[in-house]
């Protein structure tokens, strides 16, 4: 299925929101961390994994999902969370560790939970696979609508959980789709140094599951392939695997010197930045002009700035709140 104009614009808009969000987080993250870079300092402490460049994976898939559908994401979750419709104010407040955050500051950037849109993520590689399959099982058992999508990285495919869950989902014909964001790296280790096959879509055959690969980090191609896989899941025909060639434009996390990158890789990736590419497509196919661009950009910036203001204005939790919510 091809995206119509509205869907293309929806994708572009969410790509813009996500990118501007990450750029803003990047700046704020550095507050209080210079001259001496110490992760513990600043308004956003701890690790920070930015998704710049990987927006196509998020929007191309989530364009087909509603709030009732379930998504599990990774340690690099912002773009997916935004495309899934997570409450941006409360997500930002969570990243700042504020009381108004989705989890009251208990989780932070690697632990974004928004029950209202069935989104969650985690910091352990491939850990979202099981819960996605389980949510899909829940819908199957209850005869309820809704599918589950598990996002994971190319490095995560080599984790045992991937194999176990792929097999289980296939044996039980669960309404779930597995989406591999292939940015070619697992921190400093390249996909080719860690993966025995060139591309992971070939691994779907090991589970009698359809496997697809999308190249060139193309949101429209992702939309088409994901649309079919998700429709298949909704129709009760079982799970699919999609590997998307995408670009990690930033470091693995903030503070990464990226010395492991081959010369020129960074520039080459930036020259293929999916956001200008998507804009060119809108201009070519959807009569996109400066006024539309200005309007959508302004709107995107406004939403993000508003969320960041909300986070900054929010209070920190009381220290003792650390003791709550261990059990409910």
């Amino acid at each position, binding site marked *: 299925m091809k995206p119509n104009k509205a869907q293309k614009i929806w994708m572009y808009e969410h790509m813009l929101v996500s990118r501007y969000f990450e750029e803003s987080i990047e700046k704020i993250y550095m507050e209080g961390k210079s001259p001496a870079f110490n992760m513990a300092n600043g308004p956003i402490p701890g690790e920070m994994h930015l998704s710049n460049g990987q927006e196509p994976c998020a929007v191309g898939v989530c364009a087909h999902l509603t709030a009732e559908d379930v998504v599990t994401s990774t340690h690099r979750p912002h773009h997916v969370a935004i495309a899934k419709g997570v409450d941006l104010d409360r997500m930002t407040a969570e990243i700042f560790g504020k009381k108004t955050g989705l989890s009251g500051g208990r989780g932070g950037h690697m632990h974004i939970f928004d029950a209202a849109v069935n989104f969650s993520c985690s910091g352990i590689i491939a850990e979202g696979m099981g819960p996605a399959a*389980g949510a899909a099982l829940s819908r199957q058992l209850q005869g309820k609508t809704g599918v589950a999508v598990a996002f994971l990285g190319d490095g995560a495919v080599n984790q045992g959980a991937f194999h176990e869950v792929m097999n289980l989902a296939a044996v039980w014909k669960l309404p779930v789709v597995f989406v591999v964001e292939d940015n070619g790296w697992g921190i400093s280790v390249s996909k080719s140094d860690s993966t025995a096959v060139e591309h992971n879509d070939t691994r779907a055959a090991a589970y009698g599951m359809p496997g697809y690969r999308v190249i060139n980090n193309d949101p429209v191609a992702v939309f088409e392939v994901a649309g079919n896989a998700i429709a298949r899941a909704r129709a009760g025909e079982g799970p699919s695997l999609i590997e998307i060639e995408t670009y990690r434009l930033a470091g693995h996390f903030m503070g990464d010197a990226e010395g492991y990158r081959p010369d020129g890789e960074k520039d080459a990736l930036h020259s293929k930045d999916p956001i200008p590419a998507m804009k060119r497509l809108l201009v070519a196919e959807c009569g996109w002009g400066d006024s539309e661009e200005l309007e959508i950009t302004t709107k995107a910036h406004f939403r993000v700035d508003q969320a960041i203001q909300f986070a900054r204005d929010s209070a920190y939790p009381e220290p003792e709140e650390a003791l709550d919510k261990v059990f409910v």
Partner: protein
Amino acid sequence: MSDVAQKERKLTIARAMAEAVSQEMRTDERVFVMGEDVGPLGGVFGNTRGLFDEFGASRVRDTPISETAFIGAAVGAAADGMRPVVELMFVDFFGVCMDAIYNLAAKNSYFSGGHVPVPMVLMTSTGGGYSDAGQHSQCLHGTFAHLPGMKVVAPSNAYDAKGLMIAAIRDQNPVVFMFHKALQGMGWLGTEKGAINHVPEEAYTVEIGKAKVVREGKDVTVVGITSGVHHGLKAADILAEKGVSAEVLDLRSLVPLDRESILRSVAKTGRLIVVDEDYHSYGMSGEIIATVAEQGVKLHCAPQRVAYPDIPIPFSRPMEQWALPNAEKIVNSYELMTR
């Protein structure tokens, strides 16, 4: 008397567990069971017997040998509104799936600020004594109890097993339900008569986090769980013949831990012996003794523990039986502390 006798309804822990799950499945559509050989076989240890026939293959699901997958799936299903009861066949296998248990099931409530609770039960068998060697005989309840976010219960008898299982299924939080193989009442694992007791037909709960004085006494408190409780009761009989009155406390739950009941009993008796089939160091026995020590409870003599030594569990019977806690060791411990 004969009237009471007729009312007696003695069950094994295995049957009590299966009865608890089936009763909850009848009244709560959300409850379902997953695990290896829990279906037609009824569980290697009998605790899902009959469920497949009554509820069918979709609610009583045999799984591949993929613990990480199906326990992770249980977390996702629980988050989506179901109430999975999953089985890890032997607790010894926790090493292949602990992430799904301690980082996922146990922490999602906290990570989500309480908005995504994980109401699931993880059943798992523990314990040795029948020469199943070092990868099939461990208790490891201390390992689970050390990690926050999951409740940990372990019954010593069928009545508690049914009540704790129903309480666990109804709990909004992940509950690890550890059943000791030697107490299951499966003939092929031997039978501890003391674990087979009266189980009311109707559904009932035993509150999670409450210890129980299973024998009153005034000279020494013997604290244990699962098999340790039965060793303690046998030791109490022997001590009674020697004119010593031992109180036996069945913890029943390690998380939450009923520290009050421990302190109350020890304050009364002034002596403490902890029995634990789990490994000696950095586990339950140390925690119980520390609980009493840090409160400054006045004791007549130093508290002692009868725990499994810090060694893998040997296969050969003479070595394993020698290493296991038993009533004699408890009696000796008492005689040493009062010498």
